[in-house]
């Protein structure tokens, strides 16, 4: 064997070794992402086990959260989490759709980019900023101007009125819902804008060709076409609202109770964990908070997974139609 061939084969061996190392490194990193999710689930379950074993089903059905007597039930926190998120969605869905429609169908080209970026920047603002803004700016305004009006006008009505009774605290379930809505809007509108843009121009043009107004094209052509993607975006927003911590912790009032009034203070799963975790004494208390975390993980996982599956199906449809 001559020298050149020997160097060549040694070089090739070195290349093969590096190839194996590099591809193995990427594979291990990819596996790490996979195990991260499983690791989170198992770790939370492990930490939650003492509380779950002690309270069994009572943990889910009890409203009592009393560190003094070591009685812990998740119901009030779960209630607060769901209600604040629903309020957020009720406000955020119409506003986000409006923004998406404005950005895709109405705005002149020179306005599209700056407005789109501004809305996206709203998504980049950290949640703690929304928290202090909500506590120091929004809550006083609500307390002085909005909530007294709600109590006076809607409060006396039958059924609906019960949601708007009691003193105006400023902070509470409703305020948390509004702050969440502001945080969720950029997410939902970004997804909605993207799926609106996947609607083929031919479809819209045939709508206009038939004499439809802009609104009729949007409502009867664009929205039905983009429905799956829109729902996916809304569920992503819901996932974010359910798990949002800092913004809610500031304005929710942190009371483990279920009140009929939306104006009353309450708590959410994430707010309870953020507030109490470092101060929790006793294994059962800590474990109960971790169990709350596991519950939140379960709820958000289901919502996010459903949202991603919907968006995934949409992507596949878009690919197959190309």
């Amino acid at each position, binding site marked *: 064997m001559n020298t050149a061939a020997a160097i060549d084969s040694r070089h090739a061996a070195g290349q093969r070794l590096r190839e194996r190392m590099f591809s193995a490194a990427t594979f291990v990193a990819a596996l790490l992402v996979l195990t991260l999710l499983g690791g*989170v689930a198992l770790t939370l379950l492990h930490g939650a086990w003492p509380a779950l074993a002690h309270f069994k089903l009572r943990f889910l059905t009890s409203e009592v959260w009393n560190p003094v007597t070591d009685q812990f039930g998740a119901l009030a926190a779960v209630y607060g989490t769901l209600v604040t998120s629903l309020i957020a969605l009720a406000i955020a869905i119409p506003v986000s759709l409006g923004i998406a429609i404005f950005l895709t169908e109405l705005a002149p080209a020179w306005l599209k980019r700056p407005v789109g970026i501004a809305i996206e920047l709203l998504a980049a603002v950290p949640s703690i900023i929304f928290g202090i803004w909500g506590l120091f700016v929004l809550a006083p305004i609500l307390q002085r101007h909005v909530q007294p009006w709600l109590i006076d006008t809607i409060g006396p009505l039958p059924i609906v009125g019960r949601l708007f009774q009691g003193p105006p605290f400023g902070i509470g379930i409703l305020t948390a819902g509004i702050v969440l809505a502001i945080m969720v809007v950029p997410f939902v509108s970004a997804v909605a804008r993207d799926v609106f843009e996947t609607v083929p121009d031919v479809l819209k043009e045939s709508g206009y060709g038939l004499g439809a107004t802009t609104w009729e094209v949007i409502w009867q052509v664009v929205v039905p076409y983009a429905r799956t993607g829109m729902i996916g975006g809304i569920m992503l927003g819901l996932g974010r609202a359910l798990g949002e911590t*800092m913004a809610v912790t500031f304005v929710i009032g942190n009371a483990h109770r279920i009140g009929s009034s939306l104006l009353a203070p309450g708590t959410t799963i994430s707010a309870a964990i953020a507030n109490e975790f470092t101060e929790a004494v006793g294994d059962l208390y800590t474990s109960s908070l971790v169990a709350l975390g596991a519950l939140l993980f379960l709820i958000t996982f289901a919502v996010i997974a459903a949202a991603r599956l919907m968006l*995934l199906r949409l992507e596949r449809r878009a690919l197959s139609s190309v």
Partner: protein
Amino acid sequence: MSRRFLRKVINLVALGLSGLATAIGLFFLGAILWTLLSRGFAGMSAALFTAMTPPPGGSGGLLNAIYGSLAMTVIGILLGGPVGMLAGTYLAEYGRNARLSVVIRFVNDVLLSAPSIIVGLFVYELLVIRMGHFSALAGAVALAIIAIPVTVRTTEDMLNLVPQGMRDASTAMGAYPWRTITSVIYPAARSGIVTGLLLAIARISGETAPLLFTALNNQFWSTNLNAPMANLPVVIFQFALSPYPNWQQLAWSGALLITLSILILSITARLVVARLGPGGQR
């Protein structure tokens, strides 16, 4: 009223409402920025960057918190960035069509939107309990876990934008895939990958919830990674909820600092992509 007129009215009202919705969105962005600027600038002074966080009523700054935030963000991105880039490389190159990649992409998307407080709990159970105390390192690990899915996603997207022809050309010259990826594809996607890293930094530098029970807080100057460390988000959280005016003022100044740096990072990231395109060439 004719039907045609009615349709026109409905059209105008609906379009007007969508414009209004956009105005509402912009209004809140403006309102939040205005509050931050007006309240935050009141506390801007040299002391903010040179003094430690004060006791209630005393005077001081945010130096230890600024240092802590920088340190944990840097370590977080140093830990999470490479892992995210490698995993993104696997998804875009080696495992592009593997069945496993479908699962990993899905899991990554779930992690991308998972509540950050869950990550805090995870790291608490994983590291803080084992080590027996809170530490800056645990905080950095929590931030890294949040940075990973962001980096995976942007890296994969950016690598996918590199034309297949470049891979084929490199392969035809006898290069192994690792050589093609590191010498051809990474340079071609450089500015896109950098943008992804910038966005990941922007994301983790404002995170509060995962630091609450990993890094905790520290009223004093500390560079020990194995001990609790002050950081801007947690300081803002504690100071804003305190009854002391000087603490609240510092919270506003800290909030302004953090928001400005994140907005600058996000805008820079966007400009990089807009100016240079994903490949870095004009």
